[in-house]
């Protein structure tokens, strides 16, 4: 709605310029009010009358939040993380986690508006690291760091019940089905690529792409671009059948959390005490985050496994270099997200007759009378500056692929059914399937009511 109104006002302002009702600067002010429609006053959203000498007032920037508002949210984040960790690890209560999920969704999502969110704070931090002049508030740094610290101790309890993006997907996950493991492995690389892309664009000061393409922010705000609303709705509908699609296949912060989660001091366990390998839980996780017991490969296949690992280790640097080369090729396409580049291409296309008419941006540019060379110099500068980040991005993608291939070539011994620490979001769905948990909850008196412990693989009791 706001976009539509903005476009209407933009068009209206152009008409005003043409008929000379207002000075150019006023029209530009109106245009700018349109671009900042969300922050402009309501009066700015209403087109001014044609036939008056109405002067468009100066738009007031929105009043800043009270400083306590940011700290309140940091405090609530700490409380929510603590509760989630307690419910997941100590209380082992899926119901409590779900209630906390709803509360987080309401507060951090619908009331807080999902901004600045922990996921988006990656970009603030990246920009803060790359640009010494960037003012990054302490509260934003804490938003970024706190979930990482909690994950280092308790696993991904942030994802379990605190993150509003995860919460809204958890709520709609009514009939999740399991995604084939091979597909899960492949798509699981996308968040790392997205993370690299987001960091590159943030450090270059081009855009905060995580925010721009966040499918849930328009839902939390009940307003936004139609395309993003449809995207968000589609992700939610998909989330009914595929558990947490955004978290698993897009979320860049999830990719970050996977690293400390592997080293978490305390992590959720499926059985409350000892695993009896009854296999009741093995298909209970809709996110494919339960690992079966496994033994090292048979002795006769070990040489082949070693050779495979050696080949992949040799291949790894080649993948990184090849990725860097591909990234270099993508320098110019990647730089196109920069607005100067898009504007220059548009202006050039207009000049050469490839397109007809002007956009608001190109018209504004021409109205300034600025030499085109300056714009082109800016394009050349942007493209030059993008060269190294593009190579690094390509190298990063190659590294991610190489590490994944190597990890899939290594067998680890596991005695019990365990959550995959990198992928487990500590949601607690698997608890209920464990006979030990059912005993703990008093639903049954003994595990033998469910499982025949005499059978070699703990088959179900008849």
């Amino acid at each position, binding site marked *: 709605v*706001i976009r*539509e109104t903005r476009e209407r006002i933009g068009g209206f302002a152009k008409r005003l310029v043409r008929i000379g009702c207002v000075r*150019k600067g006023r029209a*530009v*002010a109106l*245009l*700018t009010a349109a*671009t*900042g429609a*969300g*922050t402009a006053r309501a009066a700015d959203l209403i*087109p001014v*009358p*044609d*036939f008056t000498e109405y002067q468009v007032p*100066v738009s007031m920037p929105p009043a*800043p939040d009270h400083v306590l508002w940011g700290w309140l949210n940091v405090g609530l984040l700490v409380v929510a993380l603590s509760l989630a960790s307690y419910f997941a690890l100590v209380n082992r209560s899926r119901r409590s986690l779900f209630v906390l999920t709803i509360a987080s969704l309401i507060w951090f999502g619908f009331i807080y508006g999902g901004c*600045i969110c922990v996921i988006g704070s990656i970009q603030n931090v990246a920009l803060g690291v790359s*640009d010494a002049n960037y*003012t990054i*508030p302490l509260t934003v740094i804490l938003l970024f760091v706190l979930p990482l610290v909690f994950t280092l101790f308790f696993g991904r309890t942030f994802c379990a019940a605190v993150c509003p993006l995860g919460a809204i997907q958890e*709520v709609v996950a*009514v*009939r999740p089905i399991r995604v084939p*493991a*091979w597909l899960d492995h*492949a798509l699981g*690389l996308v968040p790392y*690529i997205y993370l690299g892309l987001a960091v590159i*664009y943030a450090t270059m*000061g*081009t*855009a905060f792409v995580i925010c721009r393409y966040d499918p849930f*922010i*328009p839902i939390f705000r009940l307003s936004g671009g139609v395309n993003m609303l449809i995207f968000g709705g589609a992700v939610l509908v998909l989330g009914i059948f595929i558990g947490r699609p955004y978290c698993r296949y897009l979320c860049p912060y999830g990719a970050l959390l996977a690293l400390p989660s592997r080293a978490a001091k305390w992590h959720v366990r499926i059985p409350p005490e000892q695993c009896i390998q009854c296999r*009741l839980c093995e298909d209970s996780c809709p996110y494919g985050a339960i690992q079966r017991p496994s033994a090292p490969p048979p002795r006769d296949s070990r040489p082949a496994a070693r050779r495979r690992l050696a080949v992949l280790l040799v291949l790894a640097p080649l993948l990184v270099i090849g990725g860097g080369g591909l990234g270099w090729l993508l*320098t110019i*396409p990647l730089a196109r997200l920069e*607005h100067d580049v898009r504007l*220059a*291409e548009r202006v*050039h296309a207009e*000049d050469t007759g490839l397109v007809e008419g002007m956009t608001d*941006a190109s018209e504004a*540019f*021409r109205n*300034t009378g600025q*030499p*085109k060379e300056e714009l082109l110099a800016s394009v*050349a*500068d942007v*493209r*030059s500056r993008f060269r190294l980040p593009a190579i690094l991005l*390509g190298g990063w993608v190659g590294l991610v*692929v190489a590490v*994944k291939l190597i990890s*899939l070539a290594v*067998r680890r011994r596991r005695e019990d059914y365990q959550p995959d620490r990198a992928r487990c979001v500590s949601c607690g769905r698997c608890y209920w399937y464990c006979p030990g948990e059912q005993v703990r909850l008093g639903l049954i008196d003994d595990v033998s009511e*469910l499982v025949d412990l005499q059978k070699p693989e703990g*088959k179900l009791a008849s």
Partner: protein
Amino acid sequence: MTRWERYQLAFRCAVVCGVFAAVVASLLLLDYGRRVAEDPLNAPEYLQLKQQLRDDPRNEALQAEFRALDERLREAYFHRRHFAAWGTWLLLAGAAGSAALGKWAATLRRRLPHPEPVDSQDDPEETTNRTGRWAVAVLAGVAAIAAVALYAGFHSELPSDSQQLAAWIAGQQSSGQTAVLGTPTLPDDAAGTVTPLTVTEPDVPAVPTSADHPGAADLPELPAGFPSDEELRVNWPRFRGWEGSGTCPGTGVDAMECGNRRRNPLEDRGSVAGQQFASRVGRPHLLDRR
């Protein structure tokens, strides 16, 4: 009420809520399409009356009629906006009800699984890892092909570095094209040869001062309570624009008007540093006045 009856109740209610949400979503989309198509400011009646008023600006009856039409069109527009706002809440309620009841139904129907016996000869992890490696390799291959295709398919005539820029501009000049818009072209020397543009690495743009802006005197006084640049800079990280895109709201107005430096008010990036923000937005003349 038995467990099965509760499940039936929850399931049916979830379906009803889901259908309701789907109907509301359809109506909202329909309403949106209609609002986009029927722009009140482009209504034929409105445009016709506007033209009549232009031709006869002193006609008070026409003015009154125009005002009435304008008001009516605006009322209709905002009525639809109001409808959309209510519809959004109804959609949210319907979707939330459907999800909650659906989850309840799923919980009531939850059963412990009956795992089939496994073949001891099978090595599921080896199979998973092997298919996983192939899937990752395929993904990497697809990404590489996509990158090459993007490179091959992306064509830009614009220069990629300063050397290319100089050559490009020289080429434009020699071919007689105007390389400058709205300002004189590059100066030619007496012999008629084109002076090549010397392109240096761009520096950080200097913060404009009031002296740079001859039009500053015409600008309106800032309203009371207008935040200072420092306040804007400090609070900037809290704002990412109305659609969460990181687009800076309210940028470039005054710098545009003052005209010495180009500013793009529509697409000025928002994810810029505080210092850059000050220079890009360029309100120092206002600050000076303060």
